[in-house]
Structure formats: structure tokens, C-alpha cells
């Protein structure tokens, strides 16, 4: 089990290097002279040349790559043109907001998706199954940005139950920084009113973000449950007199959880990607919004920084899923 974990962590490092290489390639597919782009439209030929040597753009691509990797290892993701601050610092500042949003959304997705999937499998082709089928496919098909706007219209503008956007009202002082997750920090600080306010703020974006995730977890879990329930060992368990409830809730669920886990890992990454939409709609100060606003002002370094960061979170999540797999499935432990 330990060597298994060790191998997984090695793979993780390898993938990180790969992603870094990928972002380097993307940086270099940009058309035109990057030095001129940085220098601005009114720069003279001399200024462009200065910038070229300053940024090391006059070196060959392999050399540039080595420099780039060296910077990454030292945690240097470059500087934002707009804010003139180090990208790493800004990404670290925005990341907790995104993670908080993703965690809450993932929680909703699992807590609702898995039981619903189970129930629709057990009552296959029944009314509940028909409803969840339409519901789950709609969930994947809903444009997150549009759905967000509709929810804002209904619950924030019309009914005024929940705030329209943001993480906390401007007047509320954020709790002392511990984890960066407001829900957690406010509890640690004992400020329940702040907890309540931030909970109100996170509900709508979390629902929008979790909807497709919930839908696909439901579908995978349903499909796997159906397959497992037809398998020979379930037939055998029934023949040996094990109660239906125990068969579904214990035996079959554990077997069906394996592919569901894989889907959860996959959807985690997908959610990180979708934060660029949801955070834009809800003005949520996370790395998604940071990436979008940087991209719109042609500030490229932060976009790369966020891509790297999202890739990193995703790989970590997948590694955790792999470990959970091995924990559940004894056949994998030896391998």
C-alpha cells in the first residue's frame, strides 16, 4: 500500500512537470512578437530589443524552457502587467475562495447525487427514475452562466432571499485568516453571524457549480448500481438470504462506488474549470474571476498561473481518488 502511494506521488510530480511544459507551449503559440506585445504599440525598436533581452526572449526556445522551469521551481510565476504584483502571491490570495466554493459544491453533489442514483437504480424505470433521468441530463446541459443569472433573478432580485453576488457584504469584516475558507474561519473565530452571511453568499454559486456534477454523479452511480445489482455475486447474496436493504446499501454500493469515485475526481477538475464562469456571474473573488479579468486585459502571466494552479489541484484530487480506490478494492493493493 505504501509503495503504491509512493508511486502515485511520483506520477503526480511527473504530471506537474508535464503541465508546466504544456503551459510553456501555449505561451509560445501566441502569434506575433511577445516582446512587442509587452512593450506596447508605441514602443520604439530599441525599447522592444531591451525588453527582449530583459525577458530572455532572445534566447533559443529550449533555453527559454529551462529558464521557465527554473522560475517555476522557485515559485516564480511572473508578474501581472495590470497589478504589477507577483502572480503567485495573487493566486494564493484568490485560491481559498475558489476552493471553498468547489468544496461546498462537491459536498452538495455527493450528498444528493449518490443516494438519488442509488434510489433510481433500485426503482429502475419507475417514476423517480424517469424524473432523475431528465433532471440529470438537464443538469449537464444547463449553461452555468445562464443558470446563475436566472437564479440571481429569482432568489436575489425578485424574492430577495439571498444576496446577488460577492463573498461577503462590504460592511462585514472578514474573520481572521486561518484557512482562507470563510465558513471555517468564521467558526474558528466564533463569529456565527459572519458564518451565516457567508453561507448565504455561497449558496447560489455553489448550487450552480454543483448542478452538472450532481447530475453526472447520479448517472454514474445509477448505471453502476444497475450493473452491480445484476451481477452474479449479488444473485448469490440474494440466494443466501441476505436482506435486500443490506445488499443494496452495503454490498452493491461499495462495488458501485469505485466508478462513482472516478467520476467525482473527474468532476472536481471540471468544477475548477467552471469556476471561471460561475465566479464571473457571481463576482466571486477567486482564481477563476482573476483569470477571466486578466485574459480580458491581455495580461497573460496570471492566466498561465491560474491554469497551473487548477492543474495542480486537479492532479492532487485524482491522486487522492486513486488512493481511495486502492483502499476500497483489495485487488489493486498488490499491484
Amino acid at each position, binding site marked *: 500500500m505504501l509503495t503504491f502511494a509512493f508511486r502515485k506521488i511520483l506520477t503526480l510530480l511527473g504530471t506537474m512537470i508535464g503541465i508546466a511544459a504544456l503551459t510553456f507551449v501555449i505561451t509560445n503559440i501566441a502569434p506575433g512578437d511577445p516582446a512587442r506585445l509587452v512593450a506596447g504599440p508605441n514602443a520604439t525598436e530599441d525599447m522592444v530589443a531591451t525588453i527582449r533581452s530583459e525577458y530572455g526572449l532572445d534566447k533559443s526556445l529550449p533555453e527559454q524552457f529551462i529558464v521557465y522551469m527554473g522560475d517555476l521551481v522557485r515559485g516564480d510565476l511572473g508578474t501581472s502587467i495590470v497589478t504589477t504584483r507577483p502572480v503567485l502571491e495573487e493566486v494564493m490570495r484568490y485560491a481559498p475562495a475558489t476552493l471553498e466554493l468547489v468544496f461546498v459544491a462537491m459536498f452538495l453533489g455527493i450528498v444528493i447525487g449518490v443516494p438519488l442514483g442509488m434510489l433510481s437504480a433500485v426503482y429502475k424505470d419507475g417514476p423517480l427514475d424517469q424524473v432523475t433521468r431528465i433532471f440529470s441530463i438537464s443538469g449537464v446541459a444547463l449553461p452555468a452562466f445562464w443558470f446563475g443569472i436566472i437564479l440571481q433573478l429569482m432568489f436575489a432580485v425578485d424574492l430577495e432571499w439571498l444576496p446577488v453576488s460577492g463573498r461577503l457584504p462590504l460592511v462585514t469584516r472578514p474573520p481572521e485568516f486561518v484557512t482562507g475558507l470563510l465558513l471555517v474561519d468564521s467558526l474558528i473565530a466564533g463569529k456565527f453571524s459572519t458564518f451565516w452571511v457567508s453561507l448565504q453568499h455561497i449558496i447560489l454559486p455553489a448550487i450552480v457549480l454543483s448542478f452538472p456534477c450532481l447530475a453526472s454523479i447520479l448517472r454514474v452511480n445509477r448505471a453502476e448500481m444497475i450493473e452491480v445489482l445484476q451481477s*452474479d*455475486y449479488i444473485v*448469490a*447474496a440474494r*440466494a*443466501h*438470504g*441476505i*436482506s435486500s436493504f443490506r445488499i443494496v446499501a452495503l454490498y452493491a454500493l461499495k462495488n458501485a462506488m469505485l466508478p462513482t469515485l472516478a467520476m467525482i475526481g473527474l468532476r472536481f477538475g471540471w468544477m475548477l474549470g467552471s469556476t471561471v464562469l460561475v465566479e464571473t456571474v457571481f463576482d466571486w473573488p477567486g482564481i477563476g474571476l482573476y483569470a477571466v479579468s486578466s485574459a480580458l486585459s491581455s495580461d497573460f502571466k496570471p492566466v498561465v498561473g491560474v491554469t497551473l494552479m487548477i492543474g495542480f489541484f486537479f492532479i492532487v484530487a485524482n491522486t487522492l481518488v486513486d488512493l481511495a480506490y486502492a483502499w476500497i478494492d483489495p485487488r489493486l493493493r498488490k499491484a
Partner: protein
Amino acid sequence: MTALLDIKNYRLDIGTFDGPVHVLKGINLTVNRGDTVGIVGESGSGKTVLVRSVLGIGPRNAKVVEGSISFDGQDITNLPEKDWTKIRGIRISMIFQDPMTYLNPLFTVGRQISDVIAAHEKAAGTGVSSKAARRTRTEDLLDQVGLPNPSMLFSQYPHQLSGGMRQRILIAMALAGKPDILIADEPTTALDVTVQAQVLDLINSLVEKLNLTVIMISHDIGAIATVAKRCAVMYKGEIVEQGMTQDILNRPQHEYTQRLLAAVPDIDIAPEKVAAEATAAKPSKPGHLLEAIDLKKVYRSQSGADFTAVNSLSLSVKTGEIFGVVGESGSGKSTLARMLMRLIEPTSGDIIFDGQNISGLSGEPLRKMRRHMQFVFQNPHSALNGRHTIGDAIGEPLRIQTNMSRRDIEARAEALLDIVQLPKMFKYRYPHELSGGQKQRVCIARAIALNPRLLILDEPTSALDISVQAQVLDFLQELRSELNLTYVFISHNLAVIRQICDRTIVMKRGEIVEQGDTEQIFMAPREDYTKALIESGRKTSQAANLQV
């Protein structure tokens, strides 16, 4: 005395797209306490559906049209699910065909058995006993079915055990509730010959020790005869004949039973007629068509350990003979067959076909050589591409190896269908519309399309029903004399080998244990392994049981 299990005029339909299929047509069967009843039938006879109905775990879309099943005086035909919990696994329990797929891979063996015990205690209303008590009981059960070291087994997972051990665990699980009736659904089919004999012995000893009532279903008459005193023969959803096993084996009344019994190859009968024919068919110049010299195949596993599948093996096949290769699973016989065909690259050694060393060939010369030797695979169900029509499948070798026009290929495909005794119309059909025997004929037609000189047959009948096996074997012998073919015939079934092979090698762990004329090997085996193999083969053969 009322019967323990009474099935009366039971009729069952399964709904399909093409309308209802009558799977069971008026079954009448009575089982008394202490009986051992066998149900013999080939695939599609409805025997599995019947016994599963007895446990209330029949197919989803099934509908009982008429009749009833009663157990110990209680009608269980349409019992609600909650009442089943008092019967299933406790009063009637079941062991299954393939012990791998019937054990949950994610739970330990001990956990699965003690869960069954807990479920029974709950159903009985006695309250669930402690974990330790259940563990003791589980280990007792494991011990009872002859498994060594139960306390270690308790915390092992199914994938760590062999097939025979898993089957014993399933039996232990079935015995957990001290059942009135034990149903055994093809309990030996997925196992090796020697293991089969052990499992049958175990069932017999349990019947004696625990005074069990057993219903065993199988396609293997030998296995049924070993266990069951009474037996019923099922054919196309009906019981065509039932009575004492002895009587049925000795004096079968129904035409189907007679046909079935005649089809079982007998390990103890020397096939005089065929042997004579083979000698007659021998060409005037009996050269060696195929030789293998010092053939070796080593696989390297991911952990770096070497596994020798075939070890320094030499053989020579004479032109015109049927050369048998017999061995249990894992003996390397399939690897050997594929190496002779160059489908697997040998690690070292030479293969000489018709005087030419073919072990170094590659590319175009290898492709050309393939015309002269062809392969017939074990499982006709997966040897045909489901997306090609039969006509395409038979024509494929011609399209690949010759420049024949489309029309000529069509004509040749029809002629080949004729040779393998299938209607020409079949060229428009798809494999899934054909039966197993028909599919194997198509595979043979495909193999002989290029007029090869040598056919390598890898267990060509083991995926087929017994009566179909007999037909295919007869047909193969006819074909050989018609087309002057040489066969290398691979099988785990000794009776089949004896029936058709001229010379035979016995393989074990990649090496030849014994070789010689087939008759000589069967009459006077020199090696212990061969003797043991023939002995366990005899146990599952019908003739030996008749003499009991």
C-alpha cells in the same frame, strides 16, 4: 409423507422483443427428503431458469403462466419478497457455476460467510450472535468443506484463492443455514478435471454426513451420475424423461436421451473404426509435415519474474495424422498451438513446416505461409466478428490472400457453406443469429477456405453442447479424409482425444510428460500424472458410473 419440493405443471414465459418465449413447458418434478436429484440438459434447455424459480430469483421479465411450486407444503410460486427471507439460503440454498463471479471481490471471505450467518439468525428471530461466535462458526464451516487453515482464510479476499477453493467457499456459504435443500447449479463446469473430481467427492461426502437433499443441474451426465440417485432429462423446456439414474443411463427411453448418451465420448472405449480409417487414409509417403524443435516461451511478468509457459518442447506431426495435445489449464497447450502458427513469437526454438523453417519468417513470406496452416479457435462465439455477415467472414481469407473477384469469392463462400453442411442462405446472417455448433462450422469453413494442409484445432468443441460436440467431431473426421488434411488437436477432454487422435502428447507445466500412440497411452500409461489424469477423467465419464 408429503414431498419436500413439488413442482406441478409449471409453465414460464420470458417476454422479449419477438414476443414471449416459452422457457418452461409444464414441468412436473417431485423431490423427497433425502433425495439426490440430477437435472441434465444442454444450454437453452431451461434447467437454470427452473432451479432459480425454486429460489425466487428467476429472470426479471419472466411470467408464470400456469402451475405451481410448493415447498414443504407451502405454495412458493408467487411468494412476496419478505417471506422469501425465511426460505432463501436457510431452507433452500444454492451453489453456483463460476465461483469467481459469485463472490464479491471487495469483501473478505470471512466477512461474506459471517454476513450470511447473521442474516439467517436475523430471519430466524433469534437475535444476531456476536462477531466472535460467527467467526467460530464460519471457521467450522470452512473446515467442514475441507479447506485448510480456516483462520487464515477468514481474512483473505476471493482473488487470492484458486478456483477449487472458491467453489468450496461457496459450498460453505450454502451450508451456513443448515438447508433442507441444496441446489447445485453446474458446480463443476468452470473447474479443471482433477478439481472437478474433488468437488464432486466433497458434495457426496456432505450428502452422507449431513443427510442433505440435493438438486444438481449439469450438462455433464458423468457429474450427475456421480452425485444423483434420481435424475431428470430436460430438453427445450420440458422434462422428457425421469427416473433412477442407473435406469436412465442403462435403458434410456426417450429418443433425445438416447441421442445425448450416444454423444458422450467414452474414455474407456477404443475407437476401432476411426483408427482403421486413419491408417487407410495415410499417404504413401508418410513424411513429417510439421516439426517443432526445442520450442520455448518465457513470459516476463511486470514484477520481473519469469514464467515459462512452454519449456524446450519438441514434437513432429506426420502428414495425414491427427496429432493430439492433452493437458489441464495452465499446461501451456494453447501457447504451444499459437506458437506453431506463429501467432505468438517463441522465445527460442525452431518450427519446421513442410521442410521449411518458418520461425524466422516475417512480413510477406509469413503471410503467404499462413495459407497452408489454419487455426480453429476454442470459442466460436468470439472467434467471429459480430459486425460481419457469415458470408464476409468466410470470404475474408480469400479477400486477403487472393486476387479473386467479388463474385468468385461469393461463389466460393457458398461452396464452403455447402462443405460444412450449412444452408447457402446463411451468408446473409450475422453470428449472433447462429447456434454454437453452426458458428463452429462457419469457423471451420473459414479455416479451409484457402485449402490449407494443416489445421490446428484449439479445443474446438469445449464451448459446445455434448450432442453438438459429437456432430462436430464426426464432421471433422469426414472433412479430413475428404480434403487430405493433417490436424493438431488440442483438448483437455481425454475421452475426445482418445476418440479421434492417432498419436498424443500429454503436457504439464509447459513440458511433455508422456507421448506415443493414443491407444498405448490410454491402455498403459507410464507416468503417474497421466494415470491420475485418466482416472479423474474416468470419474466424470458416464461409463464408469454405470458399473457402480
